[in-house]
């Protein structure tokens, strides 16, 4: 599949969905569900909640299709809706009262992938737990930046916080994750090659 074809098809689907064709929108859901679910899950860290968030994000997107600019990519737009809903959830008193499940038996787990060979399984587990242990606000900022590639201003606008708060939360989140991963980072010689902007 080439990207232009996918984009062209996506515009057609969204046009039909905007006209009320639910089956076109169902196909849109089918295409973006993994990404939207992942966005939600990384923030809320519970499958049941991520499922609710993903559904609600798609429903809100469907209702707001009249406002959607088809010249813009749909993925970041729907993911931002999901991220906002996820952040709203983790900020809610109900979410604060809910204890995270013990262990990871009932939650999606980090799947082995390209990381294998660079970080050991133990390192992946440590990183996953470190992400889970982050305060929800820090985790949300980290996810919006690292996974959704939003700018600080976009994150600030999405979460209703200042750019300075975005900067500080992101810095703290990265430092905590770095602390959790530092033994493994030191052992990964190929890891230290990224160049600053």
């Amino acid at each position: 599949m080439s990207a232009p074809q996918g984009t062209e098809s996506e515009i057609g689907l969204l046009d039909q969905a905007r006209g009320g064709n639910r089956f076109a929108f169902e196909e849109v859901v089918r295409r973006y569900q993994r990404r939207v679910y992942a966005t939600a899950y990384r923030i809320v860290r519970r499958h049941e909640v991520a499922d609710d968030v993903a559904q609600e994000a798609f429903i809100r997107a469907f209702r707001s299709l009249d406002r959607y600019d088809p010249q813009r990519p749909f993925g970041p737009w729907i993911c931002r809706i999901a991220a906002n809903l996820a952040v709203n959830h983790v900020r809610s008193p109900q979410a604060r009262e809910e204890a995270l499940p013990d262990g990871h038996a009932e939650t999606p787990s980090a799947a082995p992938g390209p990381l294998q060979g660079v970080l050991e399984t133990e390192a992946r587990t440590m990183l996953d737990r470190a992400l889970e242990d982050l305060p929800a606000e820090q985790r949300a900022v980290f996810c919006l930046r690292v996974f959704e590639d939003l700018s600080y201003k976009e994150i600030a606008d999405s979460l209703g916080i200042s750019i300075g708060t975005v900067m500080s939360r992101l810095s703290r989140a990265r430092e905590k994750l770095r602390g959790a991963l530092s033994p493994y980072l030191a052992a990964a010689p190929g890891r230290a090659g990224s160049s600053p902007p």
Partner: protein
Amino acid sequence: MIAHVQDHLSAYLDGELPAPERAAVETHLRTCPECARHLEELSAVDEAARELDVEPPAGYFDSLPGRVVARLPAPRRGVWGVRRSAPPSSTSERGFIPRERTTLPVWVWAAAAVLVLAVLTPLTFQKTTSPVPDAAKTEATDAFRPAPTTPSAEAPAPAEDSLDAARDKAATVLERNVAPERKDEKRREREKANATAPAAGGRTSEYAARRPPPPPPAPSAQKHVGPWAQSPAPSQAQSAAREEGQVEAAPETKKQAEPSGKSDRDQARAGAVADAPPPAAAPAFAQAPGEDRYRALLGRQADSPEAARKLHDDWNAFARSHPDSPRADEARVRAMEASALAFNLGRDPRDRERARAAAQAYLARPDAVQAARVRALLEKLAR
């Protein structure tokens, strides 16, 4: 800047530092291996996090699109809340989306009938040229004519009220929605790279342009398929039904693909009563397709998680291959019960999630006749 710059490295990594601070950090990094190493580690954290993937319980993504569509609000453009039919749901094989067929809900026809009666009945009996004697006319009027304001006040008004309320609610929700924000070209490129859809560009409009006007579908050819069909993957039966769904009915016979009983009502409404088969008072189980297979499945016992999973698969396969069978609904419910049994036997959370997802998908169906049974199953799973 002489001191370490570690507090600024995160923003520097993102290119979000103002120019003067960025220049200062760069100057420092050239002379401080410790901070340079720190920056590399922060970057490595991002990379490692991006490589972590999340995977929901098995089968989750099979049911999510259908559940989302089932929860979508009613179209606001319809005059009477036009309801959508349930044609084929995937474009994965043919690559195009069928045009939606629409039908009116039953209550609209009932309300319209009451309204027509309310208007015509008094007019009919008030005709002065009627040959009916006054006494008989009075008797008939008293017997059959509703109270003057009752029909219009009771039947149509609630419908309008509910529609207005739905429209108001939808408008309120729209106002609360998150306003879409614009994205830059960099993210657009990333979006393209992330697209996972099959290449189907242009075929939708091509299909719409060349689709021929087909004959009205025969009642026996109607399939109960669509996004509510519970199946982990598009089946052959769905594919066949999908092709049927792409044949659009003539306007006067457009109707929703529904179980046989409802289709019969629609036919009667369209004036095709004489040609339509009489609606069955009870499903003809004895002659139902796949009845032997159904009975064989009923007799199967599962005493291990593997056997229960196999039973789940077989029930689902039955439901997919006989979507219009009166047994299909039972098969769907038994499939999720088999998953619950697999969980009880093996305590594998994936089995529980599969059962939950199937149960939720079932409850989202407009024809969830065994909703109470499925809700009870969900409650058991929650314990």
